[in-house]
């Protein structure tokens, strides 16, 4: 038993911190938010060339680094700390899905494009409260497939070169299709959202026809469910990083600010809030590292889907609430400046809100756990 990072892992995370400090400071985040695409393409190219995070999970024989979810989660945690605005999560999600599809030339070609710095996004849901898969249907005939419908909250769908589309066919089986962004009939537009650091798109398909060879996997509902549980763990990493940053910037602020002739950090009401923030983020982080280990075991075939789902539900509930608590409390500790556009705490607050309801709310995740514990005998 050794529940700590190796020296190599620490090195990866230190490098990540240094890179993100350079490319994702407050000004860079705000510039990315204000841009049409919601990210800076030069930064993305640098990330792909210098950091190679897009290849972190890809096996060596496909040209990747073949590292694990522990490394991935550590990098995403650093990205969350910096409010990083880039198609990193979306590309990792697409990669995870692709790697669970049967090996094929089409799959290898897509992985190669990801390695080369192209973006791939996943459309998997209508984007309703329950986040169920669906929204798009596939009518399959011998020589063609017709895709129809829409999908919301496609992370960085508007800038992706390729879209992976999860669609139910005539038999209600879930299949995955790969489509070029330019494909006729496919329209993908960025949604106007309250949090502007994680761009989201809406995808609409009106009678899009594709060759049967565009299908990457058939009858993969369970696979997609597993992949979405990995996605929840990836999002939780962002939340833990954000919750840590919200604590850090708030503590820095209260140490500077003077009222009643002393720094406000010396007031116990403030100290105790900060202590609670730390307790929440450390708890969420402990679950996060557990969940990352489980994702690696799942990938290696040692952990089953139920174990993965349990881990994802636990960490999503915990990290989602920790982030929102820390960012909300952080605004309170800032006083009036917490309500200004100028201070970053509001950006964390908005990202906390957005991620907390993405792929299920904390209450949904707890209900998942409740079903495991309480239903059936």
């Amino acid at each position, binding site marked *: *038993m050794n529940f700590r990072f190796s020296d190599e892992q620490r090195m990866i995370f230190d490098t990540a911190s240094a890179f993100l400090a350079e490319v994702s400071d407050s000004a860079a985040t705000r510039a990315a938010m204000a841009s049409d695409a919601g990210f800076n393409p030069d930064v993305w190219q640098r990330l792909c060339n210098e950091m190679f995070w897009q290849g972190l999970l890809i096996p060596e024989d496909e040209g990747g680094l073949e590292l694990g979810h522990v490394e991935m989660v550590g990098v995403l945690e650093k990205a969350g700390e910096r409010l990083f605005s880039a198609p990193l999560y979306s590309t990792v999600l697409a990669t995870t899905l692709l790697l669970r599809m049967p090996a094929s030339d089409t799959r290898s070609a897509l992985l190669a494009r990801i390695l080369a710095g192209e973006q791939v996004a996943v459309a998997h849901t209508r984007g309703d409260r329950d986040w169920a898969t669906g929204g798009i249907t596939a009518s399959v005939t011998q020589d063609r497939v017709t895709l129809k419908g829409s999908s919301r909250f496609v992370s960085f769908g508007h800038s992706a070169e390729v879209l992976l589309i999860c669609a139910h066919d005539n038999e209600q089986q879930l299949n995955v299709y790969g489509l070029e962004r330019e494909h006729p009939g496919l329209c993908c537009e960025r949604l106007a959202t309250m949090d502007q650091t994680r761009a989201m798109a809406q995808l609409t398909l009106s009678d899009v026809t594709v060759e049967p060879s565009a299908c990457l996997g058939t009858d993969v509902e369970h696979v997609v469910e597993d992949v979405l549980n990995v996605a929840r763990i990836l999002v939780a990493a962002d939340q833990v990083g954000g919750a840590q940053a919200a604590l850090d910037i708030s503590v820095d602020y209260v140490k500077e600010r003077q009222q009643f002739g002393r720094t406000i950090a010396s007031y*116990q009401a403030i100290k105790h809030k900060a202590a609670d923030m730390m307790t929440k983020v*450390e708890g969420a982080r402990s679950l996060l*590292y557990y969940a990352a280990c489980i994702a690696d075991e799942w990938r290696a075939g040692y952990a089953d889907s139920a174990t993965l789902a349990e881990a994802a539900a636990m960490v999503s*509930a915990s990290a989602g609430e920790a982030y929102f608590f820390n960012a909300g409390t952080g605004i309170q500790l800032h006083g009036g400046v917490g309500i200004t556009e100028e201070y970053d705490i509001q950006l964390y607050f908005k990202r906390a809100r957005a991620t907390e309801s993405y792929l299920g709310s904390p209450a949904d995740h707890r209900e998942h756990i409740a079903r495991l514990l*309480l239903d059936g005998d």
Partner: protein
Amino acid sequence: MELRFTQADELFRAEVADWLSANLAGEFEKIRYRGGPGDEHHFVEERKAWEQRLAEGGWTCIGWPEAWGGRGASIEQQVIFNEEYARAGGPGRVGHIGETLTGPTLLAFGTEAQKSRYLPGIRAGQELWCQGYSEPGAGSDLSSVRTRAEFDEASGRWRINGQKVWTSLAHESQFVFVLARTNPDEKAHKGLGFFLVPMDQPGITIRPIPQLTGTSEFNEVFFDDAYCDASDIVGEPGDGWKVAMGLLGFERGVSTLGQQMLFQTELDEIVRIAKSNGAAQDPALRQRIAEAHIGLRTLRYNSLRMLSDNADDGSLSRESMIYKLAWSSWHRNLGKLAMDVLGPEAELLEAAPYELSKLQSLFLFTRADTIYGGTNQIQRNIIAERALGMPREPRGEAR
């Protein structure tokens, strides 16, 4: 990151489990799962005998060096022992204060003579200890202890006068370690000494304090010209604070996973009741039960991080600073959850006049979890000051 224990550790686990299943049987069967927090008054004699059985098997003080009768067990092995002990339903340990507090303190700060005098009795499970820190005027602010220790030239011994309070298991102990003032002209952390004092003497009076549970696990202890030998001070006069604080760092989380196993047993019982009485259909209770489950798993991975970080340096990691606050708050909430799952049934005693059920004890006694060993407020002060670098609390003038 490795979630699993090594094969060697798993062999050690099997050895512990085998020994426990062979020995925690027969005459000891009836003390399984007994004597834990809130239940300390039960089976005391049997548990003392059990302590000696453990000692004969070489299962007391396993983390101590071999030279003092321990096994020099690694942190992992100590964790495993505690886990297996809990899994087997091992009873509350009457010797835990000596084993986890007195022993390590003497190993770190004691003289060879003190070690030879006191370690074997603890190791053999024959000499039990209690902790004499708190006083009526010194609770959270431990450094304001007033109990006085003077060197008596005539007898060549230390003479102690004063009062301790909330002293757990004083009535079962042969010795108490006492934090007392050696220099009355010095305040707060200065001028204190750390003394090893026999309980069985005319100068010591023990008065049990009835608790909200109707039982009394803690006591008042009065010192009226009590004595200990000149050699029974640990360190020098004036070192008391350093020794007392050192002691608080020794436990290092090795018992946390075992403790969590007991928590799991409690949560399982609550889940069982919820499924049988309809509470499992209540959406609000479902959320709280799930939250309890998530919270307990959080404690587990917190502990694993804490134990892994401890592995190479002795300093307290960030995770260990939050641990007391996290587990005590979780456990206190569990006590209330148990009552809410039971509903009106929660009121009914096992028997008159005041025999509590396990869950009632849990509910009442978990209110103490957030008080002893540093209250939740004190824990938050520690986190804010030591982990987050925020200013220290101002001190008033001592009255």
